[in-house]
């Protein structure tokens, strides 16, 4: 039997067929939602459903084929979940386009998003094809770190930097705008993981004890601390609270996982509390966010109605939602980007919201599972980092939109309109797939000639009498 054969206990099956089946289901969700938007608003299936659906299907199936060829043992759930989310996001953005159109503010967000998705899928495929072993990335530890900081600094540059809604986090490259922070996120995970996996023993063991924590030696912690402080400082300076929070959480998580010292969490939470308190005292825009969180309806006429409108929308949606095209998600400003969950809550109801949150939960769970079964420390750290950064991002943005926590602008992965975010997230999924492929692949068998028959013979009970 194969179980007896592999002494590690369990050999993963490829499950590519299951993935294909799920991918088709995901396409039904995406294309079905697109058709439902047409039915809900114009009363008919949109005329471009064949072209649109065909393109979406082609992209998704292409992803599947590439996974089948280059990462045959990769987790079969990740790709379908992502395809479903991306398809749903496109449909909702299309729905908002139609709403804005009736108000005379014509946008082509959905079309642009489809272009971004195409680029994202291109990078996804490129990543899987080029990167046959994720451990190669470890060579680029410092390069990644440097690149991330450069990217984060770019919006501060005079000509290409651009300020949108008080946050200077955009760069203009000709006709397209990018949020380099999204890409820096991936690079930072690689940089942190590469550094930590080399220095984890030194960080965990060398050093002296202070209060509850074993403080590592400065020369071990120094470089990474620098990298982190610079990135965090840049973000705080750019007033990008969401990303600051994200990077802080990311760093803390990876440090904790690498060193296996829970004390870091205590230190991190203490630092965070102090930082939050200081931020609240010092910055008007932080105070404004906290006030808007404690009572979203207090400054209705004068302040921002975003969160309140999003809450109204979700309440209006109730359990089952108004139906695509039947609500007024266009009342929420930026419904197509940060607040897309408000639009989903209104038109697809609590059911839709829970479904989306569960899909994110699946991605995170699958990512962490890849981390668990992964055989090398670097892969473990990268997978954990990517999964946790996704979880944090989802929590921060959906929590903000539903008024669970103060609002800090971030995009909702795969759903929100926004090129940088979509591309970065597709790359994240490619990396997770690569790591899970490596992790689930059977251990190369060194005794090449072993087969079931010879196995059976070697374990045969020999009668000595």
């Amino acid at each position, binding site marked *: 039997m194969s179980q007896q054969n592999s002494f590690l206990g369990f050999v993963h099956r490829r499950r590519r067929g299951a993935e294909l089946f799920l991918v088709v289901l995901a396409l039904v969700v995406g294309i079905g939602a697109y058709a439902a938007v047409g039915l809900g608003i114009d009363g008919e299936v949109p005329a471009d459903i064949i072209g649109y659906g065909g393109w979406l299907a082609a992209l998704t199936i292409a992803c599947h084929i590439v996974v089948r060829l280059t990462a045959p043992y990769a987790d079969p759930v990740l790709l379908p979940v992502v395809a479903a989310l991306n398809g749903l996001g496109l449909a909702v953005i299309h729905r908002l386009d139609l709403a804005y159109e009736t108000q005379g503010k014509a946008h082509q967000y959905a079309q642009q998003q489809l272009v971004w998705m195409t680029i994202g899928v291109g990078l996804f495929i490129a990543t899987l094809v080029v990167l046959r072993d994720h451990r190669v990335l470890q060579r680029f530890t410092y390069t990644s770190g440097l690149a991330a900081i450069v990217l984060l600094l770019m919006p501060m540059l005079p000509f290409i930097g651009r300020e949108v809604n008080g946050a200077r986090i955009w760069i203009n490259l000709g006709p397209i705008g990018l949020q380099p922070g999204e890409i820096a996120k991936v690079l930072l995970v690689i940089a942190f993981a590469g550094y930590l996996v080399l220095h984890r023993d030194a960080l965990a063991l060398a050093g002296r004890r202070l209060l509850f924590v074993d403080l590592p030696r400065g020369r071990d912690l120094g470089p990474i601390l620098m990298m982190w402080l610079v990135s965090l400082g840049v973000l705080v300076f750019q007033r990008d609270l969401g990303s600051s929070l994200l990077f802080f959480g990311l760093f803390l*998580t990876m440090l*904790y*996982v*690498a060193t*296996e010292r*829970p004390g870091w969490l205590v230190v991190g939470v203490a630092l965070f509390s102090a930082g939050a308190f200081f931020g609240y005292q010092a910055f008007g825009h932080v105070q404004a966010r906290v006030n808007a969180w404690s009572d979203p*309806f207090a400054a*209705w006429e004068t302040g921002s109605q975003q969160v*309140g409108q999003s*809450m*109204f*929308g*979700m*309440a*209006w*949606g*109730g*359990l089952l939602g108004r139906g695509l095209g039947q*609500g*007024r998600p266009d*009342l929420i400003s930026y419904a197509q980007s940060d607040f897309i969950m408000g639009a989903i*809550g*209104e038109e697809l*109801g*609590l059911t839709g*919201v*829970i479904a989306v*949150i*569960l899909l*994110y*939960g699946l991605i*995170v*769970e699958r990512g*962490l599972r890849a*981390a*668990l079964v992964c055989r090398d*420390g670097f892969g*473990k*750290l990268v997978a*954990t980092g990517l*999964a*946790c950064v996704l*979880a*944090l991002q*989802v*929590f921060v943005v*959906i*929590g903000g939109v*539903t*008024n*669970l926590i103060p609002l800090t602008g971030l995009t909702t992965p795969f759903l929100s309109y926004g090129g940088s975010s979509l591309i970065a997230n597709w790359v994240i999924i490619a990396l997770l797939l690569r790591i899970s492929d490596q992790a689930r692949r059977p251990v190369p068998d060194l005794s090449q000639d072993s087969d079931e028959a010879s196995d059976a013979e070697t374990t045969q009970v020999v009668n000595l009498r």
Partner: protein
Amino acid sequence: MNKPIRTMSLFCLVLFLALMGNATYLQYFKASDLNESSLNKRVIESAFSRERGAILVGRDAIAESKPSDDKYKFQRVYNNPWMYAHVTGTFSYYSQTGIERTQNSVLSGDDSRLFVSRLVDLVNNSSPKGGTVELTLDPDAQKAAFEGLDKNPGLGSDVQGAVVAIEPSTGKILAMTSSPSFDPNKLASHDLGQVAELSQELNARDDQPLLNRAISTTLPPGSTFKLVTAAAALETGDYDADSMVPGGPSYTLPHTTTSIGNGGRACGTDKIPMTQALEQSCNTTFLALADELGQEKMLAQAEAFGFNDTSLEDLPGQAESVYPTEELEDSYLAQTGIGQYDVRATPLQMAMVVGGIVNDGVVMRPYLVDEVRSPDLDVLDKTSTEELSQAVGSDSAHELRKMMVSVVENGTAGVALIPGAEVGAKTGTAESCDECNNFAWFVSYAKKGDKEVAVAVMLQKVDLSNSEIAGGALAGPIAKSVMEAVID
């Protein structure tokens, strides 16, 4: 490194559970709160563009939704707007009043009783329609009341007042008007700028046209309250209609030198029969009776008729009629016997007093919504009558009736006489301060065959000098025409 990874997965699980919990809280538990918020444009717009059910009086729709070709799709239309304004209220973008407000869930189609038709709408993919509400109003009585109040040349143009008629045996409200009135159509308009302007203007006006004086204005009921005092006296068992009660030309309030007379009416020199005291509306009698009965009995009697409470559920804004509960000095207590001092009543309350007397002492809960129907006019719910209280015993009720009839036949309310019908009434004129206008009251009932009606008319402000304002002459004819409309 697997242990911290497992810890992190637990942490992520907590994050996602928190998100789902919060979404559930928001979209399920807190949803109705949020939906009712006045800031919530989305709910307002959706309600505003829905085909709302009609409000019916008899077979005629007094409010209905008609298709409009703007973005709201339906326009609320009030037929006969001035006459029914205070009952229907208005369905404006900014607020709803009257029946439009209290029956909103039915009219908008959200009521649970409309579940089946909602389901059918869902299956047919047609937009939901609201249910229909049929009112208890009698169109003839309503017309008589409205015309008596608003189109009455004898009252001048700026009259402020109200008329209420109820069916004593059920509590059905047969007529309810308040003057001045307003045009709800203008407030339901889709021209929101104009609506805001108009509603500001209406709210700023001194004569408060939006106020439903029939249920929201409390004024001293004056002599009409003598019915309550008489009821309290009869309930002691020591009196009947023929009992001799204190009369005389004047009464000096206890522990004061203030003396109150009878305005020259024939109230004898010493003791007179109670019937005569009511016929001539003798202040001296009822001042003395109130003092004799004491506050406890007076309060109990007033509350048995519905004072210090609200009973009408079908309209918002019913004011509590007041009989003072804090301990009164004797001089004030005496004055409550003639409906002065701190006694205040709404026209509806006075109609309920008369209704209770006519209905063998049982006060019925007044109501306006008779039936709730589905969009296809199937009856979904019919309001059942409800006894509010046994205000007086059957014997006392009978005595009171006899005396009220006598007030019409021999006393101050002769104007209400309707040949061929049993009519009882009581007039009232009250003043609340020296320079104010007097208030004219008239409460009455009529019975012919199995048709009964109790009416209260209140005139708060009329363009006449105080000497010309008296309940019988001004308010009586209005009551009479309303009664005739019901019993004929």
